[in-house]
């Protein structure tokens, strides 16, 4: 099941611009659609939609959340194993590792350089095998 868009949509295309996998299509000022073969259930569209027109993969209407309040990953580096599963899964690649020339640790540890690039999907938290990441609202 993927996310879906109902008739409340005004075709503002905010969701389309945010979608990290280009799964949303449709004419401007018309109801948009989600290609369920492309949708990865990140939920970014649901949070940004100004009209509450988007329903999640369980059919529940998504709650609009001010972007500045979206959850962001917080790292507990004492738990981090440097396996970089989080970096690999991030659909917008907002998680980085330092260039090796600038790295200050023995291993390359992930960090979030710019919180406004994060879409708050929580995939990094979900994938972290050792629960070193917690999604926290700003």
């Amino acid at each position: 099941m993927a996310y879906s868009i109902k008739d409340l949509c005004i075709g503002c295309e905010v969701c389309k611009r945010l979608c990290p996998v280009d799964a949303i299509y449709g004419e401007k000022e018309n109801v948009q659609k989600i290609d369920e073969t492309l949708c990865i259930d990140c939920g970014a569209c649901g949070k940004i939609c100004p009209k509450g027109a988007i329903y999640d993969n369980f059919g529940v209407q998504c709650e609009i959340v001010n972007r500045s309040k979206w959850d962001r990953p917080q790292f507990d580096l004492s738990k981090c194993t440097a396996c970089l599963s989080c970096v690999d899964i991030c659909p917008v690649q907002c998680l980085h590792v330092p260039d090796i020339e600038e790295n200050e640790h023995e291993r390359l540890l992930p960090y979030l350089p710019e919180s406004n690039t994060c879409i708050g999907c929580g995939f990094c938290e979900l994938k972290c095998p050792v629960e070193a990441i917690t999604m926290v609202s700003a």
Partner: protein
Amino acid sequence: MGKGYMGKLLIVDLSTKEFLEEEIPDKVYEEYLSGTGLGAYYLYHKIPVNADPLGPDNYIGFMSGLLTGTGSLFTGRWMVVGKSPLTGTWGDANCGGNFSPAIKQCGYDGILFKGISEKPVYLYIDAKTMELRDAADVWGTDAVEAEQMLIKRYSQKGKTPRVACIGQAGENCSLISGVCNDRGRIAARSGLGAVMGSKKLKALVLNGNKPIVPHNYDEMKRLSKTCNRWVNFQPPFVTGPATAYVGKLMRFLPHQLIMDGMLYKIFLRKWGTVSMNQLSVEIGDSPIKNWDGSSADWPVSHSKIVNPDVFTDCEIVKYHCYSCPLGCGGICSISGKFEETHKPEYETVICLGALCMNKDPDSIFYMNELLNRAGMDTISAGHTLAFAIECYENGIITKDDTDGIELTWGNTDAMIAMLQMMIDRKGIGDILADGVRVASHKIGKGTEKFAIHAGGQEPAAHDGRGDPGFAIHYSVEPTPGRHTIGAYLYYEMFQLWKKIKTLPVPKILYHKDTKYTVDDEKIHMAASCSKYMNIINGVGACMFGAFLGSTRTPLFDWLNAATGWNKTPEEIMEIGQRIQTIKQEFNVKHGIEPKNIKMPSRTIGHPLQTKGANKGRSVNLDRLMSEYWQYFGWDTETGKPTMETKQKLGIN
């Protein structure tokens, strides 16, 4: 809820440019897992008898592991599979880095190719696109250059593609070439880079974003956190040079303590596999001077040039493969033509060092990077150089054959020059580029006795005279000459008896002489290693993770949590037996006589060594092989799986 696997294979016909998605029934995963097991199941049925490994009928498959991306640790390895052009047997090799999850993120457990393309191509996949693209501009580049070009070309906001590719050695169909990813890591064994080259397939560029969903995320994480506690236990340990003296002590003591993988883990986390560079020589684990020398020919005064600290001193940062908490790898800075290289592995250091009597550590870093970029197996290349040197030293090949290169023991410049000739297939390098078996057949003149191989595959840097378990697995495995399957040492570290109560429990302290007697316990140990490694290669796990022990690295439990199965360890081990048997049956189908695959006399103590760590040690290989076959339900004379065994395992 997911099942951990994607449920589909992608088949690409390079001749017709057609793509086919094939749904794989759940039952197949329950019987063969994913990774190498699924590859073996599929290709056993698809590759026709007598298919030319470098022809259109052969397949090459890129398989991810069942546990990759499911929240387990140590499970980021991908496998390349096909019929080996080096041995003519079932062929597989695996590699770490970050390529394994990329396969599943495209929606497949494996991507397989058949046919031959008219011109060089690479496969590109993203969420909306799947096509073969012209590789004219990357053909001829080395593996690192090709990867960097393709990553730059296809990086987009939100996604950097993952690339696996061949270097010049694969393009030139060198039978000792492999497939590379993550700037020079290499799935090196079985010569499968040549299959890719023969198909004119330069690379796979994967940019998918499909989710990988296990059955029970919470249980996966609970298990991973417990496992990670063991990984994090890292007390301070001896210095690099002191490892040689630990080895010396182990050599002179008549008894041996059972090895706990926690100790090896501490070594790996601190230094990587190079931690064994000196210790292994001292205990008789490292082959010296093309397996004719001994530790006496490579004393501490020689081996100290590659003491483990040499490698960490130039290590810029530790390198972790996907989902690995250990980080045995590293990126090292080097001087000269290349600025950086992956930290050389123990195998590389010995095969390009002691095996050729090379005492120049800088040259090992250089040759490591040269071979990684060319996509040539450092183990096989080192053995082939040692073979050529022994031929030269015995006057069988001369300066006229080597284009003036003085190919003597320890002549570093000559080794480097000859490696370049092998990569470029120039002069005698054209013959040597296909490994020791082909080279000895072409050169003739009795050089077969210098060609160290099992069924065409050069063995690794672990001496069966030190641990007869290695000699068994080099000789009985469907992928011969392989060190990453079993040994008595590995059995001790896997600690399978803690999960499967019927398996033998090794004694805590035992006399070293007992390693050389043949009994049921040894056969149980060898067979268990084979089965377990098939599980490991089916789920995409790393052997080093498994060395922590079956209770600390809970592969059986992860497998059940990821899939929703409720299989006992015994049932899972039977899957390993099935995979082992279908690989052996693949060989039989393709005309391989298992009894002809055997390590050369020199490597098993015939004649006996008169000095060094393995003085007086020999291995009764014939009996060990026969009893191993019997344990698997294979014919004790021929090594071929019996009809009864095949029926019991459902192989037809």
